[in-house]
Every structure is written in structure tokens, then in C-alpha cells.
């Protein structure tokens, strides 16, 4: 089971997270790391506490023969143990890293999708501006279509649900994040960074977009609502403002 934030378990109203494949994949990678961590740290702690309990000083016990005294520290140890531990850790990291790189490749490379929606995201002190291909602009709210698997490739006006973001900043260093989707990318003045996602479920998610780099006094309030619409209603909105 993926570890869920405290509030999700409570099922508090209005706190249902938006869904996306990126978040699901992230959760499964996270779970893999958690399992590895619990096994490794668990083994270490069991050994640690076992030694602490077993070798605690008994009443009237003598010091071991090689107990350190001023100026003397006997030499001992087995270098083979270090080599074994290194080999074990490297093989563990090898497995973790392969999975990490696979997810990274997924998160970093937007699909070659002719029906994708491209949006310029511009961070500023303190808010987010979203500029759509037809020059429609939104501030403080971000509308995207949910996934649509029936789109014919290349047909204009049919949104597949793939959303590709070109993220930059108008002033200082910001970081654009949609925690529900596990999507994040720094918004840096003078640079354009790309991120992408597909939303699986329509809905209104207040303040689902946040800034993740301290950017001045308004950092905490630098949020935007995420509005995921059905493809048709998104398209109606998209055309309505031009």
C-alpha cells in the first residue's frame, strides 16, 4: 500500500486528490523505496538494539580484555565485511536506480501527441499566469481537459488530455508544483522548463497548484486552482474567450 498523507486517510471532504498516471507511478516507486528502506533500516535497527541489550554491562562484570585505555586502542575488524556491505548496497541501488530512471524518463519526456494542449506557465510575485495556444490567459486558475482516449490524432479541437507545460518566471526563482500529480518543475527567469501530465478525472481542485521555492513574502499564497473539465466543456471554454 502506498503511504498516504494523513488527511487522505481521513477522507476529509473536498480533499480528494486529483488523479493522474504520473502520481500513480510516483506512488509505486515511492512504495518500492519504502519497502527497501524498511527492510534495510529494520535489519540495522534490530542488530543495533540487540547488541545494545545483549552487551549491556552486567553487575560485577569485568571489562573485556582489549578494553581501550589511555594511549591504546587495539586494532581489529574485518575488511571483508565492508566489501560485502558495499556489494549488497550497490546491487540494491542498482535496482532502485533503474526504476527511478524509468520513471524519470516518463516524467521528463512528453509523449509525441498531436492533440496535446500546450500551455505557457509564467510564475510571478505572487501568482501563476497560464497562456493558452489561442492566447487566452488565466491567472490563479488553470483549466485543462481530462483524458480523452477517443481522439483522432491530428484533428484540431480534439484534446487528448495530454497537457505540456512550458514553465518560466517573470521575476524571481519559483517552483511550479501540482502535488496531487507529483509534478514539479522550477520556474526560473530566462529559462523555459518543460513538464507534462494527463488528468484522469474531472473536478475542481482548489489551490492544487503551489509554489515550492521561497520567492518573497507572498510565497505561501502563490497558489492556483486546478479545474479539470470534460473535453467538450473545456473546448467550449477555450473558444469562448477569443
Amino acid at each position: 500500500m502506498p503511504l498516504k498523507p494523513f488527511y487522505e486517510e481521513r477522507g476529509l471532504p473536498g480533499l480528494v486528490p486529483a488523479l493522474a498516471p504520473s502520481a500513480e507511478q510516483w506512488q509505486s516507486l515511492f512504495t518500492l523505496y519504502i519497502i527497501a528502506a524498511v527492510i534495510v533500516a529494520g535489519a540495522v535497527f534490530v542488530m543495533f538494539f540487540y547488541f545494545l541489550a545483549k552487551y549491556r554491562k552486567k553487575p560485577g562484570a569485568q571489562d573485556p580484555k582489549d578494553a581501550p585505555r589511555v594511549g591504546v586502542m587495539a586494532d581489529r575488524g574485518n575488511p571483508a565485511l565492508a566489501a560485502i556491505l558495499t556489494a549488497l548496497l550497490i546491487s540494491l541501488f542498482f535496482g532502485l536506480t533503474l526504476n527511478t530512471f524509468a520513471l524519470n524518463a516518463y516524467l521528463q519526456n512528453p509523449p509525441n501527441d498531436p492533440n496535446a494542449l500546450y500551455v505557457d506557465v509564467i510564475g510571478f510575485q505572487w501568482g501563476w499566469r497560464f497562456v493558452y495556444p489561442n492566447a487566452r490567459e488565466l491567472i490563479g486558475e488553470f483549466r485543462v481537459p481530462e483524458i480523452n482516449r477517443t481522439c483522432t490524432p491530428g484533428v484540431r479541437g480534439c484534446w487528448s488530455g495530454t497537457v505540456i507545460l512550458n514553465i518560466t518566471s517573470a521575476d524571481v526563482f519559483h517552483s511550479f508544483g501540482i502535488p496531487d500529480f507529483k509534478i514539479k518543475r522550477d520556474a526560473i527567469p530566462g529559462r523555459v522548463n518543460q513538464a507534462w501530465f494527463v488528468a484522469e478525472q474531472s473536478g475542481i481542485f482548489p489551490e492544487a497548484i503551489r509554489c515550492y521555492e521561497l520567492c518573497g513574502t507572498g510565497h505561501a499564497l502563490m497558489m492556483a486552482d486546478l479545474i479539470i473539465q470534460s473535453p467538450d466543456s473545456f473546448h467550449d471554454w477555450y473558444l469562448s474567450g477569443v
Partner: protein
Amino acid sequence: MVDWHPLKRWLFTTNHKDVGILYLFTSLYFFVAAGLLALTFRTQLALPSNTFLQPDEYNQAVTTHGLLMLLWVLTPLGAAFANYFVPIQIGARDMAFPRLNALSYWVYLSSGLLALSSFFASGGTADWGWTTYAPLNTVEFSPQVGGSMMGLALMLLMASSIVSTVNFLVTIFRLRAPGMSLMRLPLFTWGWIFTSLLMLWAFPSFVSALSLLIADRAFGTVFFTSPQGGSLLWDHMFWFFGHPEVYVLLLPGFAIVGDLFSTFSRRPLYAKKIIIPCFAIASILSFTVWAHHMFMTGISQSLLEAFNITTELISIPFAIIVLAYILTLRGGSIRFTTPMLFAVGSLGLFIIGGVTGVFNSSVALDTAFRGTFWVVGHFHYTIVGGGLTGLFAGLYYWFPKITGRMYNERLGKIHFVIYMIGFNLLYFPMHLLYDMPRRIFTYDASTGWGPLNLLITIGGFTFGISQLIMFANLLWSARRGPQASQDPWGGYSLEWGVPSPPPEFNFPEGVPVVSATGVTYRPVAAANGGHAMANGGHAYGGHGGESSEEHWSRWPVVTAAGAGIALWGVLMGLPALILGTVILAVSFVGWGYESLRGREAIEAIGEKWPFDRLENLSLGMWLFIFGEIAFFGTLFGAFVFLRMNSPLSGFAWPQPGSVHNIFFGGFNTIILLTSGLTMVFALMFARQGSYRGLQGSLVATFALGAFFMVNKAFEWKELFASGFTFSTNPASSIYYVLTGVHGAHVVAGLTALTYLMVKALKARSTTEAGASVEIFGIYWGMVDAVWVFLFPLLYLL
């Protein structure tokens, strides 16, 4: 009649133990200050939509908490123990350069006061987070003068640390007792060697980042305001310092834990010969992982994947050390007194922090963690859990040695229990808040973050209050505690072989001689094979009625006060600047009147490998140059970054010859290189004992150096007149900073040269000046060599 004696002692002392105590009190004072700041913003975050702090107050509190804890608390607390115990552990009677040691402390204090006083500047202090990300750190977005003061305070602190690292490294490498081979050094001293090396390499690169920032803020250069430099230039420069810095914070406490595991389990350290190379490997790797702080910046993915791997690799040496520590316990007879409890706690918390660190190495998982409370939780487990808890273990462990009295064991155990409960309540829930951004001053109840934040705040206050128990315990016990024996724990390092507290010159019975069977003490007369040293009575034990007062110097405190007051001028205006500069000038003259060696006659009489052939002063100068290489290297790196980034961001770097006069620059290069040649002559004449030749070649060197600076001034004037100013473009900014910084080194060299000339003139002989000429020659050679790189970089490429 007021008895000034105690005050004078603490102001003028150069004794390493006194300096250690000064470091201890000062770092704990900053610990309380930075901890109270943390409690203010934890109070703010305890409840959703709280209004205890205003946003700008919150940001200042967060920033100052971070900077103080990292730079003015943890490392100096380690330095307190290092000052007090490293010389004893290696079997020396003091540091290699006691006056420089005192200077490091006073500059540290003055930088800390400068940092704290920046709160009172109009608009407050730095409010950009301890990471100081660009371009929020520039004047456009953070105009408050307090931010610049914080930058200057950091520079001053870095200067103090760099001087201190040189001092420690020379001390440890050159002043070990007979038989004290490197492998026999206790783990704490080894930890401090690597801490010092990391500081010596990482801190100068932070100084160069700060130089660019202060140039931007004060002179209008465009490093962090232009797209060619900007956010990423700062990121690279900052994290190249910032990641090794976290090991600087960890290693002293982590090394103490190893010594304590051995001492309190009554077993030799397991695989010490593996642990020490692991420290070395981790230290080297720490310079290859910085971009894991930049996973989301959109730089090359293959580069980031490489950093992903190096970050995983760095956990391997630490895993080996942790395993070795745990195996040390096997077959032991463990005594759970307070120091051991804190050592156990430190290792346990560090394991958790280390495991979450592996999560942070993942370039993909970082899409969730970056900038969230997960990261805050992680680094507090490593730095506070591993580092600070280890240092507190050391504080209890060495308390009886420092004070000669025992602390109250029951209160110590109560402190430990509350400390651990508070710690885990405070930092564990942060991992569950991996959606909550760091450094937000408020959040809405609908986020659901309220309950965990309340828990964290309760943990924070519990953790804070637990420290009061320690302070009360230690302060009371220092006066009223029962007498402690010489060796209450059965420790193995040399401080447990001398009385508690140790006498003035550490080893009352003579020179410690270490062998495989233990330590013996050789009476001083026999220390040098029956051949009395020039300062035989001074070497150990304080024979011959030597008193510490003979070693007092008033100049360290005066110099530090001058530097602090001068930099206060940023806030207080010109009078403070002038006053500070006058005090500095007076102190420099004062230093000149003290003999270069007279008060620092700590002769090497034991183990010196691998620096048998270098003198203390030359080794110190070489180490300093090691730091200079890091400083200039990072500036060259900034140059390369700007240059490579220019075409991408549409800026045409000026063609060679289009701005700078290559002929004039080449002419000046020849002048500087000639001054290097005359310096070689000076060294030759000094060795031959030719007083006239020495004086002549020193004057020639001075004249050539001064001529170089005059030419430089003309060059700057011409460039300014042609419209090529500080703020023209990145090419002009980096030109002025590089040549300016180099020029400052030349001026510093000319000042030192003036001393040499005066000395040689006064003494009318070469003996006094000989060694100084050699040391200055190394420095001057470095200044020349830097220019050999600068000239083609700035004029020809």
C-alpha cells in the same frame, strides 16, 4: 579597585583551552538565539491561518534560524571541542598558531554579532532563506541593507573559518607527540581533519559566490540579474559549497559517536582502519553531489542522472561506518551513562536521516519532495539528529574533563528522554507533509496540514525545553558538582591521561610518548634526546615558571573588533567605517611589533609525517593557497559558466581586442612576472645571507607590484570612460570582479612586503627575515600564477 585580571585573561588569551571555552559559550548562545527564532515560526505554523508573525518577519526568522544554526552554532560547537581537545589528543601543548587561533574566535564572534544586528537595520535582515536563491537575493527584490550586512557577516565568518582550518591542519600534521602516528589519532581528531579539509575547500567557493552577490548588491554588477548568470549560476556556486557544508556539520558529532561507542562499550573501535578511509571517500564524494539540489532546474537529464548515482554512492561509506560502530558494541560491556545515551540516540537518528537521504537521491521521487517539509525532516534528522546529538554527547562526555566536576547523571538521563521524544515529535511528522511547501508562513485549514503542524510545534517546544534541563544541569554542576576523577569513563585518547581540568600546558609530567603498549611521559629535558631546545622550558609542562600571561596578545580581539565595526559602517554610516578601519590599521601595526615566531614557538618535536620537511609556517601558507585555489577556481568556474551560457541566451561575448587593450595587458603581465623573478632573487639573497641583495630585490618587487597596480588603475579608468562599466554586461562584471579580486591580493601582498622591508631594514640582517621571505615568496608566486590564468582568459579568449 577593579580586578581586571579575569577579564584580561578572556580577552587576550591565546591558550587553546580558553579559546575552546569561548567557542563553547558563544556557540551555545547562538544556539539559544537560533532556537528561539525557530520557536517563533513554529508558533506561527501551529495553527492554520495564524497571525503570530507577519510574512516578512517569518521569512527573516526562517533565514536567520538556518544561517545561525548551520554556520554560527554547529561548526563552532565542534570547533569548541576541537580547540580544547585536538591539541591534547595529539599530544601537543597548544595549537601551531595560538594567536591566529584567538583571532579566528574573535572574528567569529564579531561576524555573529554583525549577523544578529542586521535584524535592526531598516527593512530587517536577509529574508531569502539560508540558500539565498538568486535573483530574490538581488537589490531589485530584496533591497534591505540588512541583507547585505548578512552577506558581509558570512564573508567575515568564512575568513575566520579558513584561518582556523589552516591552523588545525598544521597543528595536527606537524605537532603530534612522539609515537602518535596518524593511525593512532582518535576518531574525533580524524573527524576534525576531514571537517577542516572540507571547510578549506568548500568555504572559499562560498566566499567567491558571496563576492559576486555583494558586487551585485553594492556595485551594480549583473551576475544574478542577467539571464547569462542568474538563478543557475548561484545554484551551482552555492551548492558546490552547500553540500560539502552538510558534511562539515555532521562529521565532528559523528566522529565523537565512534569514540564514545568504543569507550562506553569497553571495546576497541571496530575496523578503525576502514572507518578513516570511509571518512576520506565521503569527503571527496561530497564535492560531486551538489546538483541533487537542482533536480528540478531543468538542466541536462543525463547530468542529473549522474548526480543521482553519486548521491547514492556517498551513502555507502556512511553505511560502512554505521555498521562498524554497531559492531564495536559486540562483546562489550556497555555503560549507559548520559554521553553514551546521546551517542546511541545520535546514531539511531542518523540512520533514519541516512535512509531518507537515499529517497532524496532519486531524481524521479524529487518531483514530490523538492521544496517540501520532507526535505526539512530529512536534513534535521541528519544534521540535528546525527550532528548536534553527537556534539551533545561530546559535551556530557568532556564536561568532567573541562570543569573537573561531574554533571548530574539523573538530570542527564531525563534530558535525553525528553530530547528524544521532542526530537521525533518535531521532525518525524514532517516526512508525512511531503506535499506542504517549505517556508510558507501560513496555510489554510482545508489543506489538512493543521494537526501534524500542531504536533510538530508541540515537539519543537518539548525539544527546546529539554535543552534548559541540560543548561541548568551543566551550569549548576560546573560549580557544585562532585569532583571528577582524571578518567571517569576509561577513555583512550590522551586527554584522559592528564588531570581534570588539564593544566596550562596540558602535560604536567612531560612529553607524552605513545607506543603500542600505552603512553609514557618523558621529562622535558630529555624530550629532544638530551639536547635542550632553544625554548626547552616552553615546550611542555610550563617548567621554568612560565605563565600563560606571557602568551597573551591583545591584537586578535582588536583586529576582530576593527573588522566588525568597519562592516557595521554599512548600517551606521561613515563614522563606524572610519573608526573600524583605524582600529584595524592600529592592530596591524601592533601585530607587526610582535615577533612573527616569538609567541608561536610551538616546536614540532614528535611525529610530522607526511610534512616532515615543511616548516609550520610554510605548511600553513601552502594550505592557505589550497583554499585560494578553491576561491579563484570557483570564480573561473563562474567565468566559464557565463561564457558558455551567453550564446544560448543571446548575448555576444566581446571579441578579443574589441574591449581590452591586449598590448597593454601583456605589458602589465610582463611587469608582474618580473616581480616574481625579483622575489626569487630575494629568496636567494636571503639564503646566501646577503643583506643588501635582499633589501634591493624586495624593493624591486614592491616597485614592480605597485607599478602593476598603477597600470591597472589606468586600465580601469580607460574602460570606464569607454562605457565598459560594472553593470554593462556579464563580460564587464566578471572582468572587474576577477581583476579587482586579484588586485586586492596584490595590494595585500604589497602590505606584507612593506613589513618584510621594514623588518629587514631594522634587523639589518637576513636571519629574522629569511623564513618570512620564503613564506611571502609562496604567496607572491600564487598571485603571479593566478594572473597567468587571468590574462589569457580575460584578454585573449
